[in-house]
């Protein structure tokens, strides 16, 4: 009995592993096929959801006309500008609060209060302040980015091993050299984690911010499509948003792989 078990168990086990990777693709593909069949047979009307093939065709058309690229670039620059401002402001605030008790007492309370606000709820106020062109969109993204950067970097600075700081001090490091050689590298993994959250929230806020009277960008494309009930264009834009999110995450992972190559979990691979 035992003998049979020990012989059979590994065989079954490798069998599962062999088909495992391919098997995970089956159910998404079946769903996609059902969607296509449903659309073609009229079970799913086009104004509810366009067929995958129609979406693919629309995507190709938008690419060929250059419409997608031009709008994507507009959206991309909104995210980039918002991120750049948000990361810079968040980092400056986190370092101010992280490196000095006085800075913490000044900076931390208002940030902790403001971060409980849902950023998107501020959009009416931002429209009143900044009008309806690019400024409120970028400002919303920037504001949303400040909090994850601030919280993670502040934590990272404070979590640097005090024993390492003490050792570095005993070897003559102080002031800026201590910050540059010990505290900032020690806080870097936390900062990168914050950056990942920041990129995700930036894409999220972009979607909503672009609903504000956009003349160009992915949001404009979606709004236009909604007016003409073009579900195919809407789905294309949704896929693009998803790809933006994925791409942003991949970017931070790539940065992590280079910047924190010294970490044991990176060294193993």
């Amino acid at each position, binding site marked *: 009995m035992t003998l049979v078990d020990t012989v059979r168990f590994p065989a079954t086990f490798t069998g599962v592993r062999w088909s495992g990777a391919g098997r995970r693709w089956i159910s998404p593909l079946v769903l996609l096929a059902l969607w296509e069949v449903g659309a073609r047979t009229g079970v799913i009307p086009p104004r509810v959801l366009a067929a995958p093939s129609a979406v693919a065709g629309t995507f190709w058309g938008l690419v060929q006309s250059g419409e997608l690229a031009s709008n994507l670039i507009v959206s991309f620059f909104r995210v980039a500008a918002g991120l750049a401002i948000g990361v810079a402001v968040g980092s400056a605030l986190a370092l101010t609060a992280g490196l000095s008790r006085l800075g913490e007492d000044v900076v931390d309370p208002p940030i902790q209060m403001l971060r409980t606000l849902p950023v998107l709820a501020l959009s009416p106020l931002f429209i009143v302040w900044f009008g309806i062109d690019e400024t409120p969109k970028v400002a919303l993204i920037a504001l949303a980015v400040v909090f994850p950067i601030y919280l993670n970097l502040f934590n990272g600075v404070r979590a640097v091993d005090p*024993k*390492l700081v*003490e*050792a*570095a*001090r*005993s*070897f*003559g*490091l102080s002031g800026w*050299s201590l910050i540059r*050689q*010990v505290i900032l*590298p*020690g806080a*870097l993994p936390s900062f990168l984690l914050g950056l990942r959250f920041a990129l995700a929230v930036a894409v999220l806020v972009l979607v909503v911010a672009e609903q504000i009277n956009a003349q160009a960008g992915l949001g404009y494309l979606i709004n236009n499509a909604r007016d003409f009930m073009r579900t195919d264009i809407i789905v294309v834009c949704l896929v693009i948003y998803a790809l933006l999110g994925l791409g942003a995450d991949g970017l931070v992972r790539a940065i992590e792989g280079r910047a*924190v*190559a*010294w*970490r*044991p979990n990176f*060294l193993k691979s």
Partner: protein
Amino acid sequence: MTRPAIRPVVSAPGGWPHKTPAVRVNNFTRRFGATTVLDGLDLEITQGEFVALLGRSGSGKTTLLRTLAGLDTADGQDVAVPSARAVVFQEPRLLPWKRVWRNVALGLAGGDARRRAEAALAEVGLSHRIDVWPATLSGGEAQRAALARALVREPRLLLLDEPFAALDALTRLKMHDLVLNLWGAHAPAVLIVTHDVDEAISLADRVLVLDGGRIAAEERIDLPRPRDGGAGFQAIRRRLLGHLGVEVSAPAPRAASDTPLVNFPVRETAP
């Protein structure tokens, strides 16, 4: 102010002039809140002398070492130490984001930092690990890198805070040899804080027992190195254990001096 007479160095290598002590502490008191950890402590370490400091947990060994290292305030009391001093901690405390040689060269000024780091790493037998990340080092290698980082500063006073406590017995023996060799080559004054009586006797010229905030007892070790745990070794060991409040009824038959019979808790209740 009564100052203890400067004792002759028994076996310090390198031939330092013995006129000025490397360390001089007079009537030093350190309190943490209501607790007096060090209470009117006097200590003198001669140039090139190897001193071991024993004591029970919480006796203030680490506080004294940190004071000498400048990591704990001396509050303007009479503590004289050389400016060139370096610490090896119980944990290697290498910066994980700097390659090994950059850790050794930490805080060094001048363009030849790499060359000096390489030389120091060669001395501790880590020439082949110069460019790796600290996370890839074994415990013994990491502690040798920490030794190199201390040595590269050419310290007149080397402070060792239970540096081998976390290592296995074999590695610890190798580290003892290494430390003695480095001490022979560079002749710094050494203060090693340890909980291991055998380690103290194996390494030091003089073993101090810290108790009640003062140096409560002192044993000069005149045995020739390497010290293999013979009768003289055992006699000193019994006396030191007695000072530490541990009664050893019969001299236990022991194969080698590297298996300590008595181990005090490794970590002090750090104030």
